[in-house]
Protein backbone atom coordinates (compact mmCIF):
# COMPACT_ATOMS: atom_id res chain seq x y z
CA UNK A 1 0.00 0.00 0.00
CA UNK A 2 1.48 3.38 -0.96
CA UNK A 3 1.39 6.52 1.20
CA UNK A 4 -1.29 9.14 0.57
CA UNK A 5 1.40 11.25 -1.04
CA UNK A 6 2.65 8.51 -3.37
CA UNK A 7 -0.89 7.61 -4.41
CA UNK A 8 -1.67 11.30 -5.03
CA UNK A 9 -4.63 11.04 -2.65
CA UNK A 10 -6.47 14.34 -2.14
CA UNK A 11 -5.77 14.07 1.61
CA UNK A 12 -2.04 14.25 0.95
CA UNK A 13 -2.71 17.99 0.61
CA UNK A 14 -3.07 19.55 4.05
CA UNK A 15 -5.51 22.19 2.80
CA UNK A 16 -7.94 19.38 1.99
CA UNK A 17 -7.58 18.02 5.52
CA UNK A 18 -8.35 21.46 6.98
CA UNK A 19 -11.34 21.76 4.64
CA UNK A 20 -12.80 18.42 5.75
CA UNK A 21 -12.37 19.24 9.44
CA UNK A 22 -14.03 22.65 8.92
CA UNK A 23 -16.93 20.96 7.12
CA UNK A 24 -17.84 19.12 10.33
CA UNK A 25 -18.97 22.42 11.85
CA UNK A 26 -16.78 21.93 14.93
CA UNK A 27 -16.37 25.17 16.91
CA UNK A 28 -13.06 27.04 16.94
CA UNK A 29 -10.80 25.51 19.59
CA UNK A 30 -9.88 28.93 20.99
CA UNK A 31 -13.58 29.78 21.36
CA UNK A 32 -14.18 26.61 23.38
CA UNK A 33 -11.24 27.53 25.62
CA UNK A 34 -12.85 30.96 26.19
CA UNK A 35 -16.28 29.46 26.86
CA UNK A 36 -14.69 27.33 29.57
CA UNK A 37 -12.97 30.34 31.13
CA UNK A 38 -9.54 29.21 29.93
CA UNK A 39 -6.85 31.47 28.46
CA UNK A 40 -5.42 31.00 24.98
CA UNK A 41 -2.68 28.39 24.97
CA UNK A 42 0.74 29.73 25.86
CA UNK A 43 3.91 27.73 26.34
CA UNK A 44 5.12 27.01 29.85
CA UNK A 45 8.71 25.87 30.45
CA UNK A 46 9.88 23.85 27.44
CA UNK A 47 10.83 20.41 28.70
CA UNK A 48 10.92 18.37 25.49
CA UNK A 49 12.51 19.03 22.13
CA UNK A 50 10.67 16.65 19.82
CA UNK A 51 12.49 16.14 16.56
CA UNK A 52 10.83 14.49 13.60
CA UNK A 53 13.81 13.35 11.54
CA UNK A 54 11.78 12.28 8.51
CA UNK A 55 8.98 10.28 6.99
CA UNK A 56 10.77 7.12 5.93
CA UNK A 57 9.34 4.07 7.72
CA UNK A 58 9.39 0.31 7.21
CA UNK A 59 5.68 0.15 8.14
CA UNK A 60 2.47 1.61 6.68
CA UNK A 61 0.15 2.01 9.67
CA UNK A 62 -3.49 2.82 8.91
CA UNK A 63 -3.68 5.60 11.51
CA UNK A 64 -0.32 7.29 10.82
CA UNK A 65 -0.59 11.06 11.25
CA UNK A 66 2.71 11.49 9.39
CA UNK A 67 1.70 9.53 6.26
CA UNK A 68 5.06 7.82 6.72
CA UNK A 69 6.13 4.74 4.80
CA UNK A 70 8.78 3.02 2.71
CA UNK A 71 8.05 5.34 -0.22
CA UNK A 72 8.74 8.57 1.72
CA UNK A 73 12.17 10.17 1.32
CA UNK A 74 12.00 13.35 3.42
CA UNK A 75 14.96 13.15 5.82
CA UNK A 76 16.83 15.48 8.13
CA UNK A 77 20.22 16.56 6.83
CA UNK A 78 23.43 16.48 8.87
CA UNK A 79 23.46 20.29 8.81
CA UNK A 80 19.99 20.52 10.38
CA UNK A 81 20.87 17.79 12.89
CA UNK A 82 23.91 19.83 14.00
CA UNK A 83 21.65 22.86 14.47
CA UNK A 84 19.24 20.78 16.58
CA UNK A 85 22.12 19.83 18.86
CA UNK A 86 23.23 23.46 19.00
CA UNK A 87 19.68 24.32 20.09
CA UNK A 88 19.94 21.75 22.87
CA UNK A 89 23.37 23.11 23.87
CA UNK A 90 22.01 26.65 24.22
CA UNK A 91 18.74 25.82 25.99
CA UNK A 92 18.09 23.92 29.17
CA UNK A 93 15.64 21.44 27.61
CA UNK A 94 15.72 18.19 29.58
CA UNK A 95 14.57 15.71 26.92
CA UNK A 96 15.25 15.03 23.26
CA UNK A 97 12.33 13.03 21.83
CA UNK A 98 13.18 11.57 18.41
CA UNK A 99 10.34 10.50 16.15
CA UNK A 100 9.57 9.87 12.47
CA UNK A 101 8.73 7.74 10.36
CA UNK A 102 11.01 5.16 11.86
CA UNK A 103 13.62 7.56 13.24
CA UNK A 104 16.26 4.85 13.53
CA UNK A 105 16.38 4.62 9.71
CA UNK A 106 17.53 8.23 9.43
CA UNK A 107 21.32 8.65 8.98
CA UNK A 108 21.32 11.40 11.63
CA UNK A 109 19.63 9.30 14.33
CA UNK A 110 22.77 8.07 16.05
CA UNK A 111 24.46 11.47 15.78
CA UNK A 112 21.49 13.09 17.53
CA UNK A 113 21.43 10.40 20.24
CA UNK A 114 25.19 10.52 20.85
CA UNK A 115 25.38 14.31 21.05
CA UNK A 116 22.28 14.67 23.25
CA UNK A 117 23.61 12.01 25.63
CA UNK A 118 26.96 13.87 25.79
CA UNK A 119 24.98 16.95 26.84
CA UNK A 120 23.39 14.90 29.62
CA UNK A 121 19.91 14.96 28.14
CA UNK A 122 17.30 12.23 28.42
CA UNK A 123 16.66 10.76 24.97
CA UNK A 124 13.43 9.07 23.83
CA UNK A 125 13.31 6.86 20.73
CA UNK A 126 9.73 6.59 19.39
CA UNK A 127 10.10 3.12 18.00
CA UNK A 128 7.78 1.01 15.86
CA UNK A 129 9.44 -2.19 17.24
CA UNK A 130 9.74 -3.99 13.89
CA UNK A 131 12.64 -1.73 12.90
CA UNK A 132 14.62 -3.47 15.64
CA UNK A 133 14.26 -6.75 13.72
CA UNK A 134 15.55 -5.44 10.38
CA UNK A 135 18.76 -7.12 9.15
CA UNK A 136 20.80 -3.92 9.26
CA UNK A 137 19.71 -3.00 12.80
CA UNK A 138 21.04 -5.96 14.79
CA UNK A 139 23.19 -3.68 16.98
CA UNK A 140 20.42 -1.15 17.62
CA UNK A 141 19.13 -2.39 21.00
CA UNK A 142 22.64 -2.68 22.53
CA UNK A 143 23.38 0.80 21.13
CA UNK A 144 20.24 2.26 22.75
CA UNK A 145 20.87 0.39 26.01
CA UNK A 146 24.45 1.65 26.33
CA UNK A 147 23.15 5.23 26.10
CA UNK A 148 20.15 4.50 28.32
CA UNK A 149 17.77 5.76 25.65
CA UNK A 150 14.09 5.45 26.61
CA UNK A 151 12.28 3.24 24.11
CA UNK A 152 8.66 4.29 23.59
CA UNK A 153 7.14 1.62 21.39
CA UNK A 154 3.82 1.37 19.59
CA UNK A 155 1.61 -1.62 20.37
CA UNK A 156 -2.09 -0.75 19.94
CA UNK A 157 -3.29 -4.09 21.32
CA UNK A 158 -1.90 -7.05 23.25
CA UNK A 159 -3.68 -9.19 20.68
CA UNK A 160 -2.74 -9.86 17.09
CA UNK A 161 -6.07 -8.86 15.52
CA UNK A 162 -6.03 -5.26 16.75
CA UNK A 163 -2.34 -4.66 16.20
CA UNK A 164 -2.32 -6.08 12.68
CA UNK A 165 -5.53 -4.23 11.75
CA UNK A 166 -3.88 -0.92 12.57
CA UNK A 167 -0.22 -1.57 11.74
CA UNK A 168 -0.27 -4.23 9.01
CA UNK A 169 -0.36 -8.00 8.64
CA UNK A 170 2.38 -9.77 10.55
CA UNK A 171 3.38 -6.71 12.58
CA UNK A 172 2.15 -8.13 15.90
CA UNK A 173 4.33 -11.22 15.69
CA UNK A 174 7.43 -9.18 14.84
CA UNK A 175 6.58 -6.66 17.56
CA UNK A 176 6.39 -9.41 20.17
CA UNK A 177 9.75 -10.76 18.99
CA UNK A 178 11.23 -7.26 19.31
CA UNK A 179 9.78 -6.83 22.80
CA UNK A 180 11.26 -10.18 23.84
CA UNK A 181 14.64 -9.01 22.58
CA UNK A 182 14.31 -5.69 24.43
CA UNK A 183 13.44 -7.54 27.64
CA UNK A 184 16.43 -9.87 27.21
CA UNK A 185 18.75 -6.86 27.11
CA UNK A 186 17.19 -5.38 30.25
CA UNK A 187 14.56 -3.04 28.82
CA UNK A 188 11.33 -2.98 30.83
CA UNK A 189 12.93 -5.01 33.62
CA UNK A 190 13.34 -2.22 36.20
CA UNK A 191 17.04 -1.99 35.39
CA UNK A 192 16.84 1.69 34.52
CA UNK A 193 16.35 0.87 30.84
CA UNK A 194 12.84 2.23 30.26
CA UNK A 195 10.46 0.50 27.86
CA UNK A 196 7.13 2.27 27.51
CA UNK A 197 4.30 1.12 25.25
CA UNK A 198 1.83 3.24 23.29
CA UNK A 199 -1.81 2.26 22.85
CA UNK A 200 -3.90 3.91 20.12
CA UNK A 201 -7.54 2.93 19.66
CA UNK A 202 -8.06 0.61 16.70
CA UNK A 203 -10.95 2.60 15.28
CA UNK A 204 -13.05 5.75 15.59
CA UNK A 205 -13.37 5.89 19.38
CA UNK A 206 -11.46 7.28 22.35
CA UNK A 207 -8.98 5.25 24.36
CA UNK A 208 -10.18 3.73 27.62
CA UNK A 209 -8.69 4.64 30.97
CA UNK A 210 -4.92 4.47 30.73
CA UNK A 211 -4.41 2.84 34.14
CA UNK A 212 -6.95 0.12 33.37
CA UNK A 213 -5.49 -0.53 29.92
CA UNK A 214 -2.01 -0.70 31.44
CA UNK A 215 -3.17 -3.31 33.92
CA UNK A 216 -4.64 -5.45 31.12
CA UNK A 217 -1.54 -5.07 28.94
CA UNK A 218 0.75 -5.96 31.84
CA UNK A 219 -1.17 -9.10 32.76
CA UNK A 220 -1.84 -10.30 29.20
CA UNK A 221 1.67 -9.66 27.83
CA UNK A 222 3.23 -11.33 30.86
CA UNK A 223 0.96 -14.39 30.80
CA UNK A 224 0.91 -14.92 27.04
CA UNK A 225 4.48 -13.97 26.10
CA UNK A 226 6.45 -13.33 29.31
CA UNK A 227 6.92 -9.69 28.29
CA UNK A 228 7.44 -6.85 30.79
CA UNK A 229 7.33 -3.10 30.25
CA UNK A 230 7.35 0.06 32.34
CA UNK A 231 4.41 2.31 31.44
CA UNK A 232 1.56 2.37 28.95
CA UNK A 233 0.64 5.63 27.24
CA UNK A 234 -2.92 5.81 25.82
CA UNK A 235 -2.96 8.24 22.91
CA UNK A 236 -6.02 9.43 20.99
CA UNK A 237 -5.93 9.17 17.20
CA UNK A 238 -5.79 12.58 15.56
CA UNK A 239 -8.35 13.22 12.81
CA UNK A 240 -5.62 14.01 10.27
CA UNK A 241 -3.67 12.34 7.47
CA UNK A 242 -4.16 8.55 7.20
CA UNK A 243 -6.53 8.34 10.17
CA UNK A 244 -8.65 11.04 8.53
CA UNK A 245 -8.57 8.98 5.33
CA UNK A 246 -9.92 6.03 7.36
CA UNK A 247 -12.61 8.27 8.91
CA UNK A 248 -13.64 9.51 5.47
CA UNK A 249 -13.64 6.05 3.90
CA UNK A 250 -15.68 4.57 6.76
CA UNK A 251 -18.13 7.48 7.02
CA UNK A 252 -17.00 8.33 10.56
CA UNK A 253 -15.54 11.83 10.18
CA UNK A 254 -18.56 13.72 11.49
CA UNK A 255 -19.28 11.39 14.40
CA UNK A 256 -15.60 11.27 15.41
CA UNK A 257 -15.24 15.05 15.42
CA UNK A 258 -18.54 15.31 17.34
CA UNK A 259 -17.13 12.83 19.86
CA UNK A 260 -13.90 14.82 20.28
CA UNK A 261 -15.75 18.12 20.73
CA UNK A 262 -18.40 16.61 23.01
CA UNK A 263 -15.66 15.04 25.15
CA UNK A 264 -13.72 18.31 25.62
CA UNK A 265 -12.18 18.16 29.08
CA UNK A 266 -11.03 21.52 30.50
CA UNK A 267 -8.84 19.69 33.03
CA UNK A 268 -6.79 18.18 30.19
CA UNK A 269 -5.95 21.57 28.70
CA UNK A 270 -3.27 22.41 31.27
CA UNK A 271 -1.22 19.36 30.30
CA UNK A 272 -1.35 19.45 26.51
CA UNK A 273 2.08 18.77 25.12
CA UNK A 274 2.35 21.92 23.01
CA UNK A 275 2.79 23.88 26.25
CA UNK A 276 5.99 22.05 27.15
CA UNK A 277 7.21 20.79 23.77
CA UNK A 278 8.94 22.33 20.82
CA UNK A 279 8.61 20.33 17.61
CA UNK A 280 11.27 20.38 14.89
CA UNK A 281 10.59 19.16 11.36
CA UNK A 282 13.05 17.26 9.17
CA UNK A 283 13.81 20.52 7.32
CA UNK A 284 14.41 22.59 10.47
CA UNK A 285 10.99 24.27 10.58
CA UNK A 286 9.50 24.69 14.07
CA UNK A 287 6.02 23.72 15.23
CA UNK A 288 4.03 23.64 18.46
CA UNK A 289 3.56 19.86 18.11
CA UNK A 290 4.05 16.98 15.70
CA UNK A 291 0.40 17.20 14.62
CA UNK A 292 0.72 20.86 13.67
CA UNK A 293 3.82 19.83 11.79
CA UNK A 294 1.88 17.33 9.69
CA UNK A 295 -0.85 19.90 9.05
CA UNK A 296 1.75 22.42 7.82
CA UNK A 297 0.97 24.84 10.66
CA UNK A 298 4.36 26.26 11.68
CA UNK A 299 4.84 28.31 14.82
CA UNK A 300 3.01 31.60 14.48
CA UNK A 301 2.20 34.74 16.42
CA UNK A 302 5.63 36.23 15.73
CA UNK A 303 7.75 33.54 17.42
CA UNK A 304 10.76 32.05 15.58
CA UNK A 305 9.53 29.49 13.06
CA UNK A 306 12.82 27.81 12.06
CA UNK A 307 15.81 26.43 13.93
CA UNK A 308 17.95 29.17 12.35
CA UNK A 309 15.56 31.90 13.57
CA UNK A 310 15.43 30.41 17.05
CA UNK A 311 19.22 30.12 17.26
CA UNK A 312 19.37 33.80 16.34
CA UNK A 313 16.68 35.02 18.75
CA UNK A 314 16.84 32.47 21.57
CA UNK A 315 13.23 32.97 22.60
CA UNK A 316 11.32 29.75 23.38
CA UNK A 317 8.17 31.43 24.76
CA UNK A 318 5.27 31.58 22.34
CA UNK A 319 1.54 31.48 21.88
CA UNK A 320 0.39 28.12 20.52
CA UNK A 321 -1.21 27.86 17.11
CA UNK A 322 -4.44 25.89 17.42
CA UNK A 323 -6.90 24.23 15.04
CA UNK A 324 -9.85 21.88 15.03
CA UNK A 325 -7.56 18.85 15.43
CA UNK A 326 -6.61 20.18 18.89
CA UNK A 327 -9.84 18.66 20.25
CA UNK A 328 -8.00 15.33 19.86
CA UNK A 329 -5.66 16.28 22.73
CA UNK A 330 -8.40 17.53 25.08
CA UNK A 331 -11.02 14.79 24.65
CA UNK A 332 -11.86 12.52 27.56
CA UNK A 333 -8.81 11.93 29.72
CA UNK A 334 -6.77 14.04 27.30
CA UNK A 335 -3.87 12.86 25.18
CA UNK A 336 -0.25 13.72 24.60
CA UNK A 337 2.93 11.92 23.54
CA UNK A 338 3.16 10.92 27.21
CA UNK A 339 -0.37 9.52 27.24
CA UNK A 340 -3.45 10.58 29.21
CA UNK A 341 -3.47 13.97 30.93
CA UNK A 342 -6.34 13.95 33.40
Amino acid at each position, binding site marked *: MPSLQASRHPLAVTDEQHRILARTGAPRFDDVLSRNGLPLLQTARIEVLQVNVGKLCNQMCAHCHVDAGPDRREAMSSETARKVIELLRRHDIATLDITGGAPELNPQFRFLVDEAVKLGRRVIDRCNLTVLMLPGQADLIPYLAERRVVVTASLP*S*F*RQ*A*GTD*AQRGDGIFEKSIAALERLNRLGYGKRTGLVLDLV*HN*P*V*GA*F*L*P*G*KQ*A*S*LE*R*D*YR*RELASRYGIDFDHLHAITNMPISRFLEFLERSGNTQSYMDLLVRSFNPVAVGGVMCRTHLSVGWDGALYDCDFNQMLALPIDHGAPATVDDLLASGDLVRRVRTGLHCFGCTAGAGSSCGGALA
Partner: protein
Amino acid sequence: MDTYYCPHDLAKFGDMGKNRPELWAKFIDYYGSVFADGALTEREKALIALAVAHTVQCPYCIDAYTNACLEKGSDLDQMTEAVHVATAIRGGSSLVHGVQMRNVALKIGM
Protein backbone atom coordinates in the same frame (compact mmCIF):
# COMPACT_ATOMS: atom_id res chain seq x y z
CA MET B 1 -42.56 9.42 18.64
CA ASP B 2 -42.54 7.23 15.52
CA THR B 3 -40.51 4.42 17.05
CA TYR B 4 -40.04 3.14 20.59
CA TYR B 5 -36.23 3.04 20.26
CA CYS B 6 -34.28 6.14 19.10
CA PRO B 7 -30.45 6.10 19.04
CA HIS B 8 -30.27 9.70 20.25
CA ASP B 9 -32.25 8.76 23.37
CA LEU B 10 -29.13 7.06 24.76
CA ALA B 11 -27.64 10.51 25.36
CA LYS B 12 -30.75 11.39 27.40
CA PHE B 13 -30.14 8.62 29.92
CA GLY B 14 -29.23 11.27 32.51
CA ASP B 15 -32.70 12.77 32.18
CA MET B 16 -33.89 9.94 34.41
CA GLY B 17 -32.32 11.90 37.27
CA LYS B 18 -34.63 14.87 36.77
CA ASN B 19 -37.19 13.30 39.06
CA ARG B 20 -36.18 11.67 42.35
CA PRO B 21 -32.55 12.75 41.81
CA GLU B 22 -31.48 11.13 45.09
CA LEU B 23 -32.37 7.70 43.67
CA TRP B 24 -30.53 8.49 40.44
CA ALA B 25 -27.47 9.63 42.41
CA LYS B 26 -27.43 6.36 44.34
CA PHE B 27 -27.77 4.37 41.13
CA ILE B 28 -24.96 6.26 39.36
CA ASP B 29 -22.68 5.98 42.36
CA TYR B 30 -23.31 2.24 42.52
CA TYR B 31 -22.99 1.88 38.74
CA GLY B 32 -19.65 3.70 38.73
CA SER B 33 -18.31 1.50 41.52
CA VAL B 34 -19.47 -1.68 39.83
CA PHE B 35 -17.61 -0.88 36.61
CA ALA B 36 -14.38 0.37 38.20
CA ASP B 37 -11.24 -1.78 38.16
CA GLY B 38 -11.48 -4.35 40.92
CA ALA B 39 -10.82 -8.07 41.03
CA LEU B 40 -11.98 -7.86 37.41
CA THR B 41 -10.59 -5.20 35.05
CA GLU B 42 -12.80 -2.57 33.45
CA ARG B 43 -12.29 -4.37 30.15
CA GLU B 44 -13.53 -7.69 31.53
CA LYS B 45 -16.55 -6.03 33.14
CA ALA B 46 -17.41 -4.32 29.87
CA LEU B 47 -17.36 -7.72 28.12
CA ILE B 48 -19.74 -9.13 30.76
CA ALA B 49 -21.98 -6.07 30.29
CA LEU B 50 -21.95 -6.61 26.53
CA ALA B 51 -23.07 -10.23 26.97
CA VAL B 52 -25.80 -9.23 29.42
CA ALA B 53 -26.90 -6.43 27.07
CA HIS B 54 -27.55 -9.08 24.42
CA THR B 55 -29.43 -11.21 26.91
CA VAL B 56 -31.71 -8.37 27.99
CA GLN B 57 -31.78 -7.28 24.33
CA CYS B 58 -31.30 -3.61 25.13
CA PRO B 59 -30.15 -1.74 22.00
CA TYR B 60 -28.93 1.20 24.10
CA CYS B 61 -26.77 -1.11 26.23
CA ILE B 62 -25.46 -2.92 23.14
CA ASP B 63 -24.46 0.41 21.57
CA ALA B 64 -22.89 1.71 24.79
CA TYR B 65 -20.98 -1.46 25.65
CA THR B 66 -19.78 -2.12 22.12
CA ASN B 67 -18.09 1.27 22.33
CA ALA B 68 -16.91 0.62 25.89
CA CYS B 69 -15.41 -2.76 24.96
CA LEU B 70 -13.49 -1.26 22.04
CA GLU B 71 -12.28 1.70 24.09
CA LYS B 72 -11.04 -0.60 26.81
CA GLY B 73 -9.02 -2.65 24.34
CA SER B 74 -11.19 -5.60 23.40
CA ASP B 75 -11.46 -6.69 19.79
CA LEU B 76 -14.25 -8.15 17.67
CA ASP B 77 -13.21 -11.77 18.31
CA GLN B 78 -13.41 -11.28 22.07
CA MET B 79 -16.70 -9.40 21.86
CA THR B 80 -18.19 -12.09 19.61
CA GLU B 81 -17.14 -14.74 22.11
CA ALA B 82 -18.92 -12.75 24.84
CA VAL B 83 -22.13 -12.74 22.77
CA HIS B 84 -21.76 -16.49 22.24
CA VAL B 85 -21.52 -16.93 26.01
CA ALA B 86 -24.84 -15.08 26.34
CA THR B 87 -26.27 -17.19 23.53
CA ALA B 88 -25.08 -20.44 25.09
CA ILE B 89 -26.61 -19.56 28.45
CA ARG B 90 -29.90 -18.56 26.82
CA GLY B 91 -29.96 -21.75 24.77
CA GLY B 92 -28.87 -23.85 27.72
CA SER B 93 -31.54 -22.25 29.84
CA SER B 94 -34.21 -23.36 27.37
CA LEU B 95 -32.75 -26.84 27.16
CA VAL B 96 -32.48 -27.33 30.89
CA HIS B 97 -36.15 -26.43 31.19
CA GLY B 98 -36.66 -29.41 28.93
CA VAL B 99 -36.08 -31.49 32.04
CA GLN B 100 -39.28 -29.99 33.43
CA MET B 101 -41.00 -30.90 30.18
CA ARG B 102 -39.67 -34.44 30.46
CA ASN B 103 -40.74 -34.70 34.12
CA VAL B 104 -44.32 -33.84 33.22
CA ALA B 105 -44.40 -35.94 30.06
CA LEU B 106 -42.92 -38.98 31.78
CA LYS B 107 -45.31 -38.62 34.71
CA ILE B 108 -48.49 -38.51 32.68
CA GLY B 109 -47.42 -40.35 29.58
CA MET B 110 -47.68 -44.09 29.03
